[in-house]
């Protein structure tokens, strides 16, 4: 299998870049929705190779970054309970809640386990009938179907000690929120290909037409990004605003019917708060009434959560594309991957993390923090 290398071919990349350079006549601002796309852009230096007129604005599509502080704090509270085995994907463990993170809970004796699939968490529940097993169900339309399927399975198999702490979010309402913001500069979107592989493209034509904005469904490898930019710029230059699928190898217009049916069965649409952005109407999912018994919030009745966001963290503006990560005063000084103020600095898809990890050379050297002693092993 050569499915990675083929999409990083320097020769093909050069041709796409030449085409983009030849097409652009004026400045354009494109938003890549997904944090995975942001990392590909920064990691491979794609933004350095594009014409100056093409600005890439990094969007809110990092599931870890947008999970609200209140939900993180609820996770920390539940994970601290002695009867609980708390299961999560790895990249949630370093995300700061109010004062601590899941790694710290684990070092204090909490049973926090990294799993690679929600079904692993369900298996742990079967193997530990005397414990409560909670899976941290966060993410966009990509991770929602397997999490829904796991709850479906738990109910079908009658596994009573499994529950889901849900904070799922949906992309189209976020695009709507960005486009209706008075400070919006976005003129075209590179939509997240994996989201569309699940949901299809049905929600996008209306958005594109109403906001007169091209939406190009785009993959995650360097050539995918360049092709997405090329098609978006071509539409902008021609004054067009349609939905274009540049990720046809993975995305069918109708999406994945089995996944959609599972979502329909287990979840219902709800308003959802996005960390750093605020509540976006109809932008999330919660477990439907039929599955309420599997809702960890319901089961553990976690209340009295007092959250406190660090005042100097500007991750909300980064997530909305209003500033670049290094334009935040805390970037690289009081906020580093070692001591993050916000999730955008610590998530593997976070824009701040991408700039800190890959782009420090181009930024002021004084901004990189010295090593410091850690109080906890």
């Amino acid at each position: 299998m050569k499915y990675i290398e083929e999409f990083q071919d320097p020769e093909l990349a050069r041709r796409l870049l030449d085409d983009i350079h030849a097409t652009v006549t004026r400045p354009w601002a494109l938003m890549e929705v997904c944090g995975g796309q942001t990392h590909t852009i920064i990691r491979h230096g794609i933004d350095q190779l594009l014409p100056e007129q093409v600005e890439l604005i990094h969007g809110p599509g990092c599931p870890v970054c947008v999970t609200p502080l209140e939900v993180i704090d609820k996770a920390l509270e539940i994970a601290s309970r002695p009867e609980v085995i708390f299961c999560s994907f790895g990249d949630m463990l370093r995300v700061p809640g109010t004062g601590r993170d899941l790694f710290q809970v684990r070092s204090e004796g909490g049973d926090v386990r990294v799993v690679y699939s929600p079904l692993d968490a369900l298996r742990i529940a079967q193997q530990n009938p005397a414990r409560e097993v909670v899976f941290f169900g966060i993410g966009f339309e990509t991770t929602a179907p397997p999490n829904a399927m796991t709850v479906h399975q738990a109910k079908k198999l009658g596994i009573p000690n499994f529950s889901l702490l849900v904070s799922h979010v949906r992309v189209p309402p976020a695009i709507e929120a960005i486009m209706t913001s008075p400070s919006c500069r976005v003129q075209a979107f590179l939509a997240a290909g994996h989201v569309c592989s699940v949901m299809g493209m049905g929600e996008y034509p209306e958005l594109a037409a109403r906001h007169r904005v091209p939406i190009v469904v785009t993959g995650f490898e360097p050539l995918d990004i360049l092709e997405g930019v090329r098609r978006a710029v071509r539409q902008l230059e021609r004054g067009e605003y349609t939905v274009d699928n540049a990720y046809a190898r993975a995305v069918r217009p109708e999406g994945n019917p089995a996944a959609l049916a599972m979502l329909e069965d287990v979840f219902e649409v709800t308003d959802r708060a996005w960390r750093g952005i605020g509540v976006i109407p109809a932008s999330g999912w919660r477990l439907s009434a039929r599955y309420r018994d599997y809702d960890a919030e319901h089961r553990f009745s976690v209340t009295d959560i007092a959250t406190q966001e660090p005042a100097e963290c500007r991750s909300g503006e980064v997530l909305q594309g209003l500033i670049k990560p290094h334009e935040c005063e805390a970037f690289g000084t009081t906020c580093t991957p070692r001591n993050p103020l916000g999730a955008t600095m610590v998530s593997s898809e976070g824009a701040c993390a991408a700039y800190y990890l890959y782009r420090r050379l181009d930024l002021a050297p004084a901004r990189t923090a010295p090593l410091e002693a850690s109080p906890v092993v």
Partner: protein
Amino acid sequence: MGHGGGGALSAELVQHVFAPAFGGEVLAQLGDSAAVTLGGARLAFSTDSYVVRPLFFPGGSIGDLAVNGTVNDLAMSGARAAYLSCGFILEEGVEISVVARVAEALGKAARAAGVEVATGDTKVVEAGHGDGIYLNTAGIGLIPDGVDLRPQRVVPGDVVIVSGEIGLHGVAIMSVREGLGFEAEVESDCAPLGGLVQAMLAVTPDLHVLRDPTRGGLAAALNEIAAASGTGVVIQEGRVPVPEAVGNACAILGLDPFYVANEGKLVAFVPREHADAVLDAMRAHPLGRRATVIGEAVEAHPGLVVARTGLGGTRVVDLPIGEQLPRIC
């Protein structure tokens, strides 16, 4: 846990806690092994502990690791490893047959590496206080005259060579870890590097520094050398040999192969005039057949490692914070 991952947190612990508490000029060099003079002989002295899970994995076992890890630390000083100590910390309840299999593997690896296990120790801890078996090995070896390998000798213009394909050990371990649920066709590269190092030194004793990129992978090794030498390092991302199965596994899990552990590879900083000859010698050795020049030491951006990407961009290759974590999607 991150403090044991070989990244920035490990470095902090050593710099801020252990080094000030222990003092001593030898320790201050912070090499993989210590170079000491005793009775007129130049010795390399090193110790390491092994807490790998599972105990047996594709391409090796904790016993192989315990020998090769310490032998390789000595080899990175240019030393021929001579004697090892071996400490077994056993968890109550571990089967004797498992201990015997590990001991057998350890003995076989020692014979293959040309070292003698000269002393040892056994302790048993209560059930629930260990992962079956933990091992510690220490080793000593002689450093040949004229050999002086340390990062302070690196100068701009030095050529950076990696001895072969990276990421095999880490991916082999991950492929059999509980819960991962995928089977990669990857075996650990666990191997003793003493012979390869001697083959390189036979060409020229004037190698500047060697490092085996274990925990923290190639990125951690290059960062440690850049930081300690005060030079910058530039690598060509496309020249670093990454096996297809490793690249695919890393892509699925959201990991970077540059940060994945190796147990049978080395990174060498070699004066430019000797680079071709050293490369030829490496390629003539079974453990260096895929040896490749991946970059050079530079005056620019001292202490930083920078990769030129396949597309022509640049990026910083940072020291990892702790363990890499698989991402959500």
